């Protein structure tokens, strides 16, 4: 009976605990909640059309269930205020997303991708658990605020260890190079609306974790934290975009761009950490605003691009862009949506990606103005690398859009493609509209982001101004720098109309339709078109030191003079997989193999094991 009353008392105690104690609704959490819902709403609408016809009704029901658990777990991850509860929801999020990755179980690649994903994500969780336990050791509590207080008195060495553990743990989820390996496998294999959630939102929860635990709870006091994140971010940007350029699978290409964009987001976050450590609150908040702005922008345009890629996949049945082409005529609305997304991710004005990359560049410049000699050069080089990244991203999306949607269809798949259903288009157009809104309404959004950034860094942003008036946003410097996207859009539109005016000013023009020039051969076929492989060749050669391209050519000749057929094969080497992951995996498998000798299948041996174990336990109990 005593046991029972104890149990009952415990139960009552559980109920009495107010929910508020477990939740935290500061502006930072609210910001991430809005990121989650802004992408999951159109993804849900989209999935109605996307799932129809491809799956059985039981599977569709399962998909809806998993979809909602996934969104709920992400929403809880960004709002709980207890490290242990955080970890539980973090695990639920990872597991549910694993089930969504392997949703198409009939594809062997899905199962393999799921395997890589679940292993990598658990390695990350292990590091997080270690970090949380270390924090618990000092704070004797899992509550965020209690840990935050305890962290003030923590020795520097422990803080550094916790930072590294958190960086690896969250870095795995975010896909920072070299922990990005799972990302290009797992994201493309999930159904497209899930891909858009994973790339658009799920990896952002890792950024949330980094901001919440490192900036908010741990507090940044050594400048090398920020510098380390900046270096990793620059590497992620470049590696992500270079791999994306070499990729011909539309969804994998987008997944590599997620690696790149996480890098750009982390440039803002790392810069904010750097400024916090050198005690420059205005710049810290400004950089974090730039990072958070890119975060929500990336959620929007990457969500959009994945939905468009899903439409292409659904309509054409392939994701290989070398087999596509000419889709702009078959699927005009999807093409418009993809074009808007491609322009946004290439940072073209006046769309949203442009604003956040501009802000990030400004953050670097402003930081350099206030830093000493060596740091100036470092920040300048980081800014230059960001410019290189955005140039390469533009090249990649010229390739992705040009090869997929323009010219003539390269295969029957593309020829038979038809425009997708209304619900899918609705999801895409919603995000495309948001892409434009987040570009034009930059000034107002920046004010909202200032609150989230203030909450994250613990800086009072009330006295700081991040905007001149409703239309013009500007960094606060001695000589003001302006950017006004609405005015810029107006100027571009007016000049475009002026161009059209000049065009029409010379009266009606005779225009004839003719064939594309093919040196007078008049038999231009899709085989004459430039391919994605050819398009990226100059960059493959320029970055050959990193990509280690390998090619094989084979000619089958009828006679010496007549080549009957010619095969050309080219691959790039996945440096990280080949030189880091494969050896590590081989080591694990080898040691597992040698351990297997313990298990030869003989029952006598197993009884012997049990006997020895019991014996050892008895000795152990006696001794200690």
């Amino acid at each position, binding site marked *: 009976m005593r046991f029972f009353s104890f149990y009952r008392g415990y139960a009552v105690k559980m109920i009495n605990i107010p929910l508020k104690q477990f939740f935290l609704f500061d502006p930072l959490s609210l910001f991430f909640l809005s990121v989650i819902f802004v992408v999951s709403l159109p993804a849900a609408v989209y999935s109605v059309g996307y799932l129809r016809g491809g799956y059985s009704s039981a599977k569709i029901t399962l998909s809806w269930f998993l979809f909602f658990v996934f969104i709920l777990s992400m929403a809880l991850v960004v709002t709980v205020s207890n490290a242990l509860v955080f970890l539980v929801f973090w695990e639920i999020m990872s597991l549910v997303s694993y089930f969504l990755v392997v949703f198409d179980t009939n594809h062997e690649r899905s199962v393999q991708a799921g395997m890589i994903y679940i292993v990598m994500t658990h390695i990350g969780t292990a590091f997080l658990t270690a970090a949380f336990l270390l924090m618990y050791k000092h704070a004797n509590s899992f509550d965020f605020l209690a840990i935050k207080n305890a962290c003030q008195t923590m020795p520097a060495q422990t803080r550094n260890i916790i930072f590294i553990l958190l960086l690896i743990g969250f870095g795995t989820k975010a896909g920072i190079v070299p922990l990005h390996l799972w990302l290009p496998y797992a994201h493309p294999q999930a159904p497209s609306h899930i891909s858009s959630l994973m790339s658009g939102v799920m990896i952002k929860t890792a950024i949330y974790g980094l901001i919440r635990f490192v900036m908010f709870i741990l507090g940044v006091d050594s400048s090398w934290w920020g510098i380390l994140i900046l270096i990793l971010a620059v590497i992620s940007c470049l590696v992500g975009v270079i791999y994306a350029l070499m990729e011909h699978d539309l969804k994998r290409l987008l997944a590599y761009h997620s690696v790149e964009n996480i890098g750009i987001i982390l440039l803002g976050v790392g810069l904010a950490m750097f400024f916090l450590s050198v005690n420059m609150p205005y710049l810290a908040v400004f950089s974090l605003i730039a990072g958070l702005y890119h975060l929500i922008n990336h959620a929007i345009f990457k969500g959009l691009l994945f939905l468009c890629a899903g439409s292409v996949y659904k309509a054409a049945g392939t994701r290989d862009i070398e087999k596509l082409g*000419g889709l*702009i*005529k078959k699927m005009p609305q999807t093409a418009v949506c993809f074009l808007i997304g491609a*322009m946004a991710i*290439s940072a*073209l004005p006046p769309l949203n990606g442009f604003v956040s990359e501009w802000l990030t*560049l*400004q953050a670097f*410049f402003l930081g*350099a*103005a206030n830093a000493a000699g060596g740091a*100036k*050069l470092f920040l300048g080089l980081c*800014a*230059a*690398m960001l*410019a*290189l990244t*955005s*140039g*390469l991203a*533009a090249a990649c999306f*010229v*390739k992705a859009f*040009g090869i997929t949607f*323009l*010219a003539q269809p390269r295969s029957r798949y593309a020829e038979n493609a038809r425009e997708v259903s209304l619900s899918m288009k609705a999801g895409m157009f919603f995000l495309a509209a948001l892409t434009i809104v987040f570009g034009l309404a930059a000034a107002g959004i920046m004010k909202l982001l200032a609150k989230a950034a203030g909450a994250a860094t613990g800086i009072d942003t009330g006295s700081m101004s991040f905007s001149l008036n409703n239309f013009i946003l500007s960094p606060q410097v001695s*000589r*003001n*720098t*302006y*950017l*006004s996207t609405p*005015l*810029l859009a107006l*100027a*571009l*539109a007016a*000049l*475009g109309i002026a*161009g059209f005016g*000049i*065009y029409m000013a*010379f009266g009606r*023009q005779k*225009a*004839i*339709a003719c*064939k*594309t*020039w*093919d040196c007078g051969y008049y038999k*231009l076929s899709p085989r*004459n*078109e*430039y391919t994605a492989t*050819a*398009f990226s*060749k*100059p960059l493959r050669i320029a970055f050959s030191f990193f990509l280690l391209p390998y090619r094989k050519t084979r000619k089958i000749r009828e006679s010496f003079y007549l080549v009957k057929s010619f095969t050309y094969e080219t691959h790039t080497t996945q440096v990280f997989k080949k030189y880091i992951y494969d050896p590590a995996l081989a080591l694990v498998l080898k040691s597992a193999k040698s351990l297997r000798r313990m298990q030869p299948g003989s029952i006598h041996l197993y009884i012997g094991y049990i006997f020895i174990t019991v014996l050892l336990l008895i000795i152990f109990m006696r001794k200690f």
Partner: protein
Amino acid sequence: MMKIAVIILQLVLFIVFAPFLSGLIAKIKNNVRMRRGPSVFQPYYNLAKLFSKGQAVSETASWIFKVTPFVVFSSMFAAAMFIPVFIFSTSAHYLGDFLAVIFIFSLGRFFLALAALDTGSSFGGMGSSREMFISSLAEPVFCLVIFTLFLQFGSTDIAAFSGIHPLSASSVVAATALFLVTIAETSRIPVDNQETHLELTMIHEAMVLEYSGRSLALLEMAAYVKQMIFFFLVAQIIFPIAAPGLSGLIPSVLWILWYSARIIIVAALAALVEISVAKMRLFRVADFLGFAFILGIIAVVCAILGV
């Protein structure tokens, strides 16, 4: 209203003067080669001819192909609004700053590269691929040059030009780096060759190969404007010059003469480079721009040291 009038005046002056620079460069090149060559006004004749001609549009092309001339025109002229070439006004600086100019340039380039792929010709694909290759490597150099100016002046505002120290080491090195970018961006030898239609070498010409008539005229105009912007930037970084005090007729005239002479000097320099070096292989352009990048870093270091 006044501000808008000033901006429009500047754009009109751009349309009027930009083609002249191309004619001038062609003339210099021909004269050095001991040829007579066409008149310096040939680009104007070409534009007039193209505007009066009919147009042939490929059957495979989509609306991207038709809309691109306007987008390119609009983005290059928008960039021209930012550059205080003729009139020292800061009227356009509410729109954006130098960094925004990088992105505005890439808007036009993005569409031009797409239009080149749109017709389904391999030439277009080649041009598109090469253009994106070169421009993406040129972008970090441009960024470093702006960074150098920023370190000297403390802002990326377009008025930054008035704060440049004339002929300081960092300005000269930055201008040299920008000059190399200019060669790449305006498709001149040794990166590209405007005079040829040989498929192995052409880049810009390959992208506009399918265009004819007025669409081509708009694209050519945009290219002239882009070239003028780059020449102006190089000239302004080496020989910065402030707005005139307008104290009497003769100083004003001298000011205007020196103002335009600087741009012509840069154009002449580009012409001399074109006739004195051979075109390099496409893949060597990476080294060329890599060198420009190193120059950019040196410029930043000089600016940090304050020289």
